[in-house]
């Protein structure tokens, strides 16, 4: 098992290198540069700036410069936020989005899994219909609409939670719920569907025939065996949620990292684009290793044999 993890981590290195290389190429292919703006700079001044950031060098040279810095753990300076390094920016923003993201993962797993499992236990009952209705509501509206609805109801009318900003745990509730609704809905549907399938398998019938209590059948046998698709989804989901969401951070004014996935690109802040992409890629790699470990734990037959 330790060997598996080490091997997979070793596999992560070429993946990260590819991500860095392809992203580097892509961002230089996209038209427009970091210092293009409404008030055009005189060419002499543009030349000064390009020289400062080595942008006057061929792209390949820039790439080598970047990879060299990267190997030393230096993600470079931001082109947009002058005087701040990408390391600084990520260090400031990542803890915020991670915190919000973990809340959201928790809510979506507990809420979605519970609703889906409950629905599957009593298909076509009122629990089922109610759960699936909520699950539909969660995936049928854009998050900016959902978030605004939540603000209208819970802060504007009921004064239960703050409408925006980031000053304490109460400020995290509405953004976390907004973030969690879509994955929760999906998890609920996946769980329900997968569990319905499992509930008709022989071993469940056997368990029931043996006279095991229904909750125990559901929780221990059915849930565990129906969880694979949820786990496949959960890995990348966690990576996505803890790196933040542009929309949620914007409408709730949360200083997280999700905004940079959009603004770094619109600003053509090359080092910041690279930085957030690499952080995300690392998380994806790690999350997928965890997912594969969980697979083998859920179902020993899917043993890791091919390495």
């Amino acid at each position, binding site marked *: 098992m330790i060997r598996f993890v080490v091997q997979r981590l070793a596999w992560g290195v070429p993946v990260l290198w590819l*991500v860095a290389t392809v*992203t580097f190429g892509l961002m230089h292919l996209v038209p427009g540069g970091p210092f293009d703006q409404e008030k055009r700079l005189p060419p002499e001044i543009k030349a000064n700036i390009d020289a400062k950031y080595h942008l006057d060098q061929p792209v390949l040279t820039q790439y080598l410069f970047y990879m060299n810095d990267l190997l030393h753990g230096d993600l470079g300076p931001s082109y947009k936020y002058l005087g701040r390094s990408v390391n600084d920016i990520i260090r400031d923003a990542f803890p915020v989005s991670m915190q919000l993201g973990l809340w959201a993962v928790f809510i979506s797993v507990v809420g979605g899994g519970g609703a889906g499992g409950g629905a599957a236990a009593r298909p076509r009952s009122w629990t089922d219909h109610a759960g699936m209705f909520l699950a539909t509501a969660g995936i*049928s509206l854009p*998050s900016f*609409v959902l978030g605004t609805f939540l603000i209208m109801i819970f802060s504007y009318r009921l004064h239960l939670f703050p409408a925006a900003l980031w000053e304490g745990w109460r400020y995290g509730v509405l953004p976390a719920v907004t973030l969690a609704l879509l994955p929760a809905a999906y998890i609920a549907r996946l769980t329900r*569907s997968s569990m*319905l399938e499992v509930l*008709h398998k022989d071993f469940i019938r056997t368990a029931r025939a043996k006279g095991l209590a229904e909750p125990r059948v559901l929780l221990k046998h059915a849930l565990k065996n129906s969880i694979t698709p949820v786990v496949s*989804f959960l890995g990348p989901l966690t990576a996505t949620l803890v790196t933040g969401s542009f929309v949620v951070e914007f409408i709730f004014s949360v200083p997280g990292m999700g905004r940079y996935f959009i603004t770094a690109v619109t600003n053509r802040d090359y080092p910041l684009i690279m930085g957030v992409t690499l952080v995300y890629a690392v998380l*994806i790699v790690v999350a997928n290793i965890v997912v594969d470990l969980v697979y083998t734990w859920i179902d020993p037959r899917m043993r890791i044999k091919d390495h």
Partner: protein
Amino acid sequence: MAGSGAAEGQDPRAYKRIIMTVQRLIQSDPRITISGGFILLVCFSALAAPWLAPYPFDLQDTQSILKGPGPQHWMGTDRLGRDLFSRLLYGARMSMAVGIFTAAFAVLFGTIYGAVSGYIGGKTDNISMRFVDLVYSLPDLLLIILITVTIGRGVLGIFLALSLVSWVTVARIVRGEVLRLREFSYVEAARAIGAPHSRILFVHILPNTLGVLIVTLTFRIPAAILAESTLSFIGLGITPPFASWGSMANEGWSAMKFYPHLILFPSLILFLTIAAFNVLGDALRDTLDPEHRMR
């Protein structure tokens, strides 16, 4: 894919049975009739928009900007005095096309990719999953801007951009399922009697992922429709003066308190359509699941 042809050729009865089941259950399960009917209605309205819409979608009436619902404009007007109902009808074209095509592509390609990868296993699986990690990690927005710069922000550009980033989710899920199923005893039995790989994969394994696949499909459609609205939120949605439900929701959400009709009607139609897809998905799943059918 050669495999699917082989599977059909070898076991036509299985597919015929499914078709018959669908026919039978359309009659027996009212959910299929209602939700399917609604989706067909939306598709029909989208196609027939030029005849159904009371106004052209881009006709501006600067005298009646932001009017609420009334006899002249059933759903009111937008910021340029355009008829909201007409724009919703035309917007259906964009949203349904993007939703259905993107989801179909993602599910088709993702399923084949994930299934083959999971079934072959070993180094192939490892490498192809690392490729999925790569695609997953690339910044979507760069890809989307690049695509829309090259081919424009019409239906095609948005469809391509969204498809390119959405199939990997499906691939991962299907691969997980296949990994699990390929070790089941009946699969091993099939292998033991020397069944060809394509037959094992398409006859013994994939049908068992149907439940998950249908959920994925009914989820990908709304996801694609919503992804298009997020593009609008960022400012990369469909080119004006055309509309989609997502771009209309984006124009309306900030005015929720002041001009609620701007957000109410697009939200409502989004909700109903996506609910219909989900109900249809559930009903189909219940129908097609060979064991669940017995209940």
